[in-house]
């Protein structure tokens, strides 16, 4: 017998090379920030702060931050926010943003050149799917990035509680045909995501491959186009956000009271496992998924 217990099966801890620790914020870009703001408020978010130099608003509920970016000044026409809101970025919490960024670049990520104004934070970023970006944020414990770049809206509670325990569950990404493996490897290589078995399903929507974050706090779900819609629907985008809640029915009741409409068709309708809001503003929908509470 050896003195030390041997690791016969070479089982390591789940790899989390960047010290990933959940989602810091999700950014939408749109030319109609008020319209999207109304949708977010119906979902329980509150505007709490404005960006110092750009047309950017910070919304919050519970542990979730959503940034609406309507900043167009100085941007080329092609990258200005469009009418329909799109998910423009996911900001990931990491142990050391600089180190995480360098590691991702060394492995084949594309750097996004940052353009901070004087006294603003430089948040390292990578190109994600389509026109989207992946930010890496390490200042979320002692003080936050919002303390530097944002001015609080007076008289507003900076920490509005979550409606029926809503929290980040994940983000749904549309991918091209036969692109599930490409994107699975992309997120695996750069961030340590791991694909769950093919038949793993959360919520009520029937399709897609689920990738679990190495921190165990959220998921990405990759969805291919229907075979008969390949030519009409080739885009790759971050498509929608999913919120976890310990009680889907209670959440649907509360959100309905606030004016949110849910899809109630024969195929997709509210169940204990999940629900889907009706799309508005040209495609903004949110998914609710039964999920007791965010992982610690």
């Amino acid at each position, binding site marked *: 017998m050896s003195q030390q217990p041997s690791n016969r099966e070479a089982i390591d801890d789940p790899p989390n090379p960047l010290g990933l620790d959940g989602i810091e914020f999700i950014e939408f870009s749109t030319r109609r920030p008020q319209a999207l703001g109304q949708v977010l408020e119906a979902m329980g978010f509150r505007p709490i702060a404005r960006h110092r130099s750009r047309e950017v608003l910070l919304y919050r509920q519970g542990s979730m931050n959503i940034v609406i970016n309507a900043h167009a000044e100085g941007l080329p026409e092609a990258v200005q926010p469009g009418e329909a809101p799109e998910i423009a970025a996911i900001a990931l919490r990491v142990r050391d943003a600089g180190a995480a960024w360098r590691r991702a670049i060394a492995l084949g990520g594309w750097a996004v050149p940052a353009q901070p104004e004087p006294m603003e934070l430089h948040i390292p970023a990578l190109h994600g799917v389509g026109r989207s970006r992946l930010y890496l944020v390490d200042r979320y414990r002692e003080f936050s990035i919002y303390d530097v770049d944002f001015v609080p809206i007076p008289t507003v509670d900076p920490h509005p509680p979550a409606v029926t325990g809503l929290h980040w569950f994940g983000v749904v990404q549309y991918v091209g*045909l036969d692109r599930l*493996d490409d994107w699975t490897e992309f997120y695996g290589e750069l961030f340590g995501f791991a694909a769950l078995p093919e038949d793993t399903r959360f919520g009520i929507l029937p399709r897609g491959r689920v990738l679990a974050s190495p921190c165990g706090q959220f998921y990405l779900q990759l969805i291919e186009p229907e075979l008969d819609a390949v030519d009409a629907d080739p885009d790759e985008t971050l498509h929608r956000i999913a919120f976890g809640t310990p009680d889907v029915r209670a959440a649907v009741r509360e959100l309905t009271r606030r004016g949110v409409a849910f899809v109630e068709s024969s195929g997709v309708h509210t169940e204990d496992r999940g629900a889907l809001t009706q799309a508005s503003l040209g495609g903004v929908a949110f998914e609710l998924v039964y999920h007791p509470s965010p992982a610690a």
Partner: protein
Amino acid sequence: MHIDDFGMDTITLAGDLRAKLRAVREAGFGQIMLSARDLVGHPDGWRAAVSEVKASGLRVTGFQVLRDFEGLSGHLHEYKVDIAKGMLEMCHALGSTVLLACSSTSQHAGSDPDDLARDLRKLATLAVPLGIQVAYEGLSWGRHINEVTTAWDVVCRADRANLGLCIDSYHVLAAKTPLDVIDTIDPQKIFLVQLSDFLWNEVPSFEERMNTARHFRVFPGEGVHTDGVAEIVMRLDRMGYRGDYSFEVFNDDYQGLPLPTVAQRARRSAVWLAEGILRRSTPLPNRMRLRGTS
């Protein structure tokens, strides 16, 4: 006539891009392999070249060629990554889903296959957001990787969904690689096949292989390796390869002939392969593309 799977390569033809596109289309081809030079050498800039390609209606078989990428370190590696990114962006703008990368000839390149695989893995990761597959080709005068067998080994080590092989009949025949090794390759991982014949029986040295490859290739069926090219195509077809065949024909004489004349030679070759070798029949109208065909 079913020559949909065959295409020409701009490097075969003289003249400007517009003339090449027209000649290829008028010869009845539906696709064309493009070079970076076609784009960056365009008098109105590379984006104008992209517009011309799109207006031609031809599908882009692939975009070439990233050279000497793998095996470098330090600032040489950083430099090549920048070059690769530029090529990926042009490839993406063209709507091409295949970037051809050929094995390094650089004396500065290392030989450890795991290092080569790591670099190709990085290239593949860079290509993911742009929707591009990287086809890695072993040049028959590559410094460390100079046969399809070793190229396949590196691709397997890298193990990326969007990294596969380009098989070029010239390099297989020039290096005298036994043709039965093709059967050991996963057909799903062959992203491109380039075909050409050539005029000499033997090309033993790297120097001769390079010289022949760059000046004396001919279309399949026009040289002395007709049987070899036919066998390669038949093996690929038998094992389930259903991708594109591009004629990679560098030939100084063809650069001096009218474009329609050269394109007709290419067409004869495509018809010979499609009907004489692969025995393809005329496709049904509105042919459906089914996924996962094998």
